[in-house]
């Protein structure tokens, strides 16, 4: 249970708020490379501010500036992109990548007017086929090259814009018991009433859960019925990656769940997956296959016959911003309380001028994250369920993914039989 003020402090992401200041210390994926195949600009909203993201025509360099031109607030998304910046379509004021005003065509050239105006600007880079931006204070940290985005494999990314605050999605990531109930018991109920077989692996009872603070966030562990601390679910676990990811996977699928805080009431939710099963064979791929997954039916009801659809029901039905003055947490919610503490701790770090958790300032090739391989003790069933009963069921390459895993499975069985 929180007070109104505590809840607001944890959920408001705009400029000048404690959480907004913390979140501005991180890089965010905000668009896909293919968004710029036909147009050079795109309006994106991040942390309650509108931005113009653009790509230069020859060099292919990305830049990001606040959308409203400081002159008279026209949208820079309808501007002219040059190799060294973007020019407002309205009166031609030109802004470089750092937000400096370098031209004001209708103003006398001997004035220093242009030195007195500055546009808010960020930094943009490409990784894993997505455009990542940083809109916080300098010096910008390095873009963290988490394993899923840079490892070799078949990449697949489903996305949707959800009408809820990002924190209620993050709290779900430190709530292991929901798997057994929402994706187990409820899913089974859906299957029985609608005539399909819900995956059994998600129905296993939790015997023990653990939360451990680590370099990148909170490592989550579980022991399920029939298992022990020797299983990957406990021995390895998987992390909530602070402040807006969760790393999951197993059975040759590695996934980063991404919750981009668009504003206080909106989250861009992506499931970015990399498929690289042992003994699998695939063509090199430079961009993920990108698609929108659906979560409401024609009548406006939540679609809850797949795993992420169930999650979305749980997140969005809490309301745009969960009223935590009404909650009653139990022992199984200890991870939620721990996450709130982590946010408070890092808000304080930022207020003290320190780098928050997960800031990386060294050049690096890849950041490996711990993640169980043998998920729920159900490798083949898990991979199939992940693809056919999760958001990947909406993927245009769904059948190819199933074939990839089936072929790899057959090769491994053949190799094992011959050994």
């Amino acid at each position: 249970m929180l007070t109104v003020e505590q809840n607001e402090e944890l959920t408001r992401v705009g400029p000048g708020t404690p959480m907004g200041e913390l979140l501005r210390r991180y890089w965010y994926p905000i668009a896909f490379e293919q968004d710029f195949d036909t147009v050079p600009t795109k309006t994106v909203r991040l942390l309650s501010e509108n931005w113009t993201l653009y790509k230069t025509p020859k060099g292919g360099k990305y830049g990001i500036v606040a959308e409203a031109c400081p002159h008279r607030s026209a949208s820079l998304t309808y501007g002219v992109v040059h190799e060294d910046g973007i020019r407002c379509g309205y009166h031609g004021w030109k802004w470089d990548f750092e937000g400096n005003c370098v031209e004001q065509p209708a103003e006398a050239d001997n004035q220093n007017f242009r030195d007195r105006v500055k546009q808010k600007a960020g930094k943009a880079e490409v990784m894993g086929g997505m455009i990542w931006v940083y809109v916080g204070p300098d010096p910008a940290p390095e873009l963290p090259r988490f394993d899923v985005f840079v490892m070799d494999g078949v990449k697949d990314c489903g996305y949707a814009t959800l009408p809820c605050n990002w924190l209620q999605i993050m709290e779900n990531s430190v709530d292991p018991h929901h798997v057994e109930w929402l994706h187990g018991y409820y899913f089974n109920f859906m299957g029985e009433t609608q005539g399909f077989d819900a995956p059994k692996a998600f129905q296993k009872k939790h015997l023990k859960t653990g939360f451990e603070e680590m370099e990148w966030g909170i490592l989550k562990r579980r022991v399920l019925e029939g298992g022990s601390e020797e299983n990957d679910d406990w021995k390895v676990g998987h992390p909530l990656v602070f402040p807006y990811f969760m790393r999951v996977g197993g059975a040759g699928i590695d996934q980063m769940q991404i919750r981009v805080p668009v504003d206080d009431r909106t989250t861009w939710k992506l499931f970015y997956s990399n498929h690289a099963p042992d003994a699998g064979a695939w063509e090199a791929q430079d961009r993920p296959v990108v698609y929108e997954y659906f979560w409401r039916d024609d009548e406006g009801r939540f679609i809850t016959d797949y795993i992420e659809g169930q999650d979305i029901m749980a997140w969005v039905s809490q309301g745009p911003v969960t009223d935590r003055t009404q909650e009653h947490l139990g022992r199984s919610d200890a991870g939620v309380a721990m996450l709130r503490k982590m946010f408070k701790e890092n808000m304080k770090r930022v207020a003290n001028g320190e780098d928050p958790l997960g800031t990386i300032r060294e050049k690096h090739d890849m950041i490996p994250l711990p993640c169980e391989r043998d998920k729920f003790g159900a490798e083949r069933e898990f991979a199939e369920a992940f693809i056919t009963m999760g958001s990947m069921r909406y993927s245009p390459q769904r059948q190819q993914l199933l074939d990839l895993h089936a072929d790899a499975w057959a090769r491994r069985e053949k190799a094992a039989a011959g050994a």
Partner: protein
Amino acid sequence: MRDDIDGNRSRAGGAAPLGDPSPARIPLSDLPPDPHRLPPPGAWFAGDAERHLLDKPKFCPMCAASIEVHGGISTEYWVSDQRVFMTWCGECGWFGDVVRYDMVTITEEEH
């Protein structure tokens, strides 16, 4: 104190009724001052919110700094009859549970 706690819980609609009917609502003047706004009187959770504000740790068990003033947080969760306040001190970094007991119980292990 037990009656106070249980009474407020039992008024709290969705929460498990644990004891006698509640006493009158705590006067607003007895509650911590703003910024602690409460749910509207009569809301099913108002009694729980009120007790939470009154009972959550105000000072760090380790260094005695104010939890609130130094940017800390105390989040309450329930374990059966126990009310547990997971607390982090923004001053010294102490992080742990503060448990409010109505009765201390010990589970005897098999022997």
